[in-house]
């Protein structure tokens, strides 16, 4: 019997994992870490939905509730969503998909993970020390002058984790530029690579702005002088501009990689080449670019100039064009395809539907007059959860299923995979669709109690959250099970075209036995007859 060493059997000690330079192992380290944070953020969300099951604020106090939604936001945004697809699947797949031996800077890659963990420790320390109640947005002057919670500690955590994002982005950009296999020109790159490349550009351009802005908040809180507090001659709108200059593009950091995943899965299970490849690539770049020009739509009612509001409104509508190109092209890819409803495909189809709803309701919020009514209501909460959870989390899970055979060398149980995908789709809609209605009826966000007439819809939402919880625990269970008991995966279980499927599952240490050469574009699927 010949034992071939793959990256998983390259060492079994904890030390061999914690000192690895292999991008695939680092991806697994990230997966473990972000899964822990996902369930931490999920626990906070569970408490929120339990509190909101009844109109009275009876489960937790108003202060505790503020801390719960702050933890939920901070943990989910910076410690789960932003690193999710780029740091786990991007790390694992970018070198494989472009035929490289590793990321351009393997040691920097490992350092990024440690930076992430360090940032996480600061944030957890802040939670243990009593939490923060500013919301994930840290609006001044509340965060600098009034709150007595652990703002500086959390800011340090977010600041540190930002450098993990920046370094991962840097690594991906250089890898894509310098390590593509012979014959792999830019317009032969899989769309997943385009998406991660564009995401990395945003990480590089936006994250430092947030980092410095948060430093300024911490300094202002610490020294009592600064540029954000009006009592000190500062301007709170300046903070909001700087914060959203990062935080709006951050939405695209979360959704672009998800779009990249959908663009891999849909052609594979429709057995067709992706419709309009170049348009898809340009749309990714278009979204990344426009994403930097729309931050003011978070500030329509904050007192910014009306003319600025009009410009930001118009630019926000423009984002719909490349987004719609993507949705139409995924749909057109399905047309006359031979569609297999495998678990990854169910996630991807669910993603397209949920992203469409999330995107269209974004247009409500981009229009000035409607936003005055809808801002700071549950409509906004529902909208961004459709994008971030319905979009990013669904596609993160879809990606985990699709590439699970490659990552683990095992097949997951297909039927359970499909059941989980459907459970998540139903649970998600039950949780968040009622929140659109609640917001439309005027229920504001961030309160732990509400008038009794909103209870029915809130009950639907809380019930949906319970279904969602089942949907998230299912994959945790059966993916873990498959690590030990799953069927051994062949190199290419889906008959997919990417380079990553041409190497064994799991791949050997430096990915390919010999340097692959690319002779055609991506997604060259033959129709099933």
């Amino acid at each position, binding site marked *: 019997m010949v034992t071939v060493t793959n990256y998983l059997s390259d060492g079994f000690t904890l030390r061999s994992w914690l000192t690895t330079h292999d991008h695939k192992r680092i991806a697994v380290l990230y997966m473990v870490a972000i899964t822990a944070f996902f369930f931490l953020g999920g626990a906070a969300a569970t408490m929120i939905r339990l509190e909101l099951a009844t109109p009275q604020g009876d489960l937790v106090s108003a202060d505790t509730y503020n801390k719960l939604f702050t933890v939920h936001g901070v943990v989910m945004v910076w410690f789960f969503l932003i690193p999710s697809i780029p740091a786990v699947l991007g790390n694992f797949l970018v070198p494989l998909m472009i035929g490289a031996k*590793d990321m351009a800077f393997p040691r920097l890659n490992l350092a990024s993970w440690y930076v992430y963990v360090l940032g996480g420790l600061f944030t957890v320390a802040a939670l243990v020390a009593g939490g923060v109640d500013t919301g994930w947005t840290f609006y001044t002057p509340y965060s600098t002058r009034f709150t007595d919670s652990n703002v500086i500690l959390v800011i340090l955590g977010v600041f540190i984790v930002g450098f993990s994002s920046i370094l991962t982005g840097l690594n991906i950009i250089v890898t894509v530029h310098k*390590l593509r296999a012979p014959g792999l020109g830019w317009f032969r790159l899989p769309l997943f690579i385009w998406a991660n490349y564009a995401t990395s550009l945003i990480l590089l351009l936006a994250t430092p702005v947030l980092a410095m802005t948060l430093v300024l908040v911490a300094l202002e809180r610490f020294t009592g002088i600064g540029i954000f507090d009006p009592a000190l001659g500062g301007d709170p709108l300046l903070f909001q501009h700087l914060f959203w200059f990062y935080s709006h593009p951050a939405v695209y950091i979360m959704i672009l990689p998800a779009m990249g995943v959908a663009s891999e899965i849909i052609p594979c299970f429709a057995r067709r080449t992706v419709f309009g490849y170049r348009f898809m690539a340009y749309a990714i770049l278009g979204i990344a670019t426009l994403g930097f020009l729309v931050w003011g739509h978070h500030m329509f009612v904050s007192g910014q100039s009306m003319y600025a509001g009009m410009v930001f409104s118009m630019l926000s509508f423009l984002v719909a064009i490349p987004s719609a190109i993507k949705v139409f092209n995924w749909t057109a890819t399905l047309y006359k395809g031979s569609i297999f409803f495998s678990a990854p495909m169910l996630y991807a189809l669910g993603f397209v539907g949920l992203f469409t709803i999330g995107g269209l309701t974004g247009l409500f919020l981009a229009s000035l007059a409607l936003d005055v009514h809808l801002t700071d209501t549950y409509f906004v909460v529902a909208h961004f959860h459709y994008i971030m959870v319905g979009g990013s989390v669904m596609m993160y899970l879809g990606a985990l299923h699709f590439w699970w055979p490659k990552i683990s060398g095992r097949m997951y149980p297909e039927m359970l995979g499909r059941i989980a995908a459907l459970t998540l789709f139903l649970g998600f809609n039950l949780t968040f669709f009622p929140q659109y209605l609640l917001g439309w009826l005027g229920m504001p966000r961030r309160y732990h109690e509400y008038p009794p007439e909103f209870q029915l819809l809130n009950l639907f939402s809380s019930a949906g959250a319970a279904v969602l919880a089942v949907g998230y625990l299912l994959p945790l269970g059966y993916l873990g099970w498959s690590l030990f008991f799953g069927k051994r995966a062949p190199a290419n279980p889906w008959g997919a075209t990417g380079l990553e499927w041409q190497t064994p599952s799991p791949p050997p240490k430096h990915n390919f036995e010999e340097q692959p050469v690319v002779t055609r574009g991506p997604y060259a699927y033959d129709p099933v007859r």
Partner: protein
Amino acid sequence: MPTIPFDSRLERREAALLAMWAFLVTEALFFGPLFFGYVHGRIANPAAFVSASHPMHVVLGTLNTALLMTSSLTMALAVRGAQQGKAIRLWLALTALLGLAFLGIKASEYWMESSEVAKASGAELTFYFLYFAMTGLHALHLTIGIGVVAWLWRHAARFGREYHAPVEVSGLYWHFVDVVWVFLYPMFYLLERYNA
């Protein structure tokens, strides 16, 4: 000896240069909110910014500018020397010493200004907040730069015609730090002269 994942030293050098350029873009945006905050503060309180800049030591600031510009020259000579396979220790030492001299003068300025800051009020405090934040962050970058140059000095024997990417990459960083100062100098020292 090329290292995984690169096939050649040339490939590795190109990747390192691209990475540093990308990092410097990030750095520029890292300074961004400070510059933005300065512009905002100065438009809102022009008079206070001018009066707050009054105690700045223009002569020392100008001298420091000259020192840093000279250090950029010596750094450039070190990079050129490494590419041509010449000895670079002298240039590296001069670069680090000029950087240290800058930091020394800056520290003495901080010392002298501290009494002025104690007297400041209102938007003048905003000016000093930005002054200390921006020049402090710049000094932090310069300190890191001096450390890097010292490291290059220690390993200078390794660099030559074949292998000099670390010198080039450090040079890019050093010039970036100098360019930041070129903006800081007029923003904090020359306000009064512009308005006079």
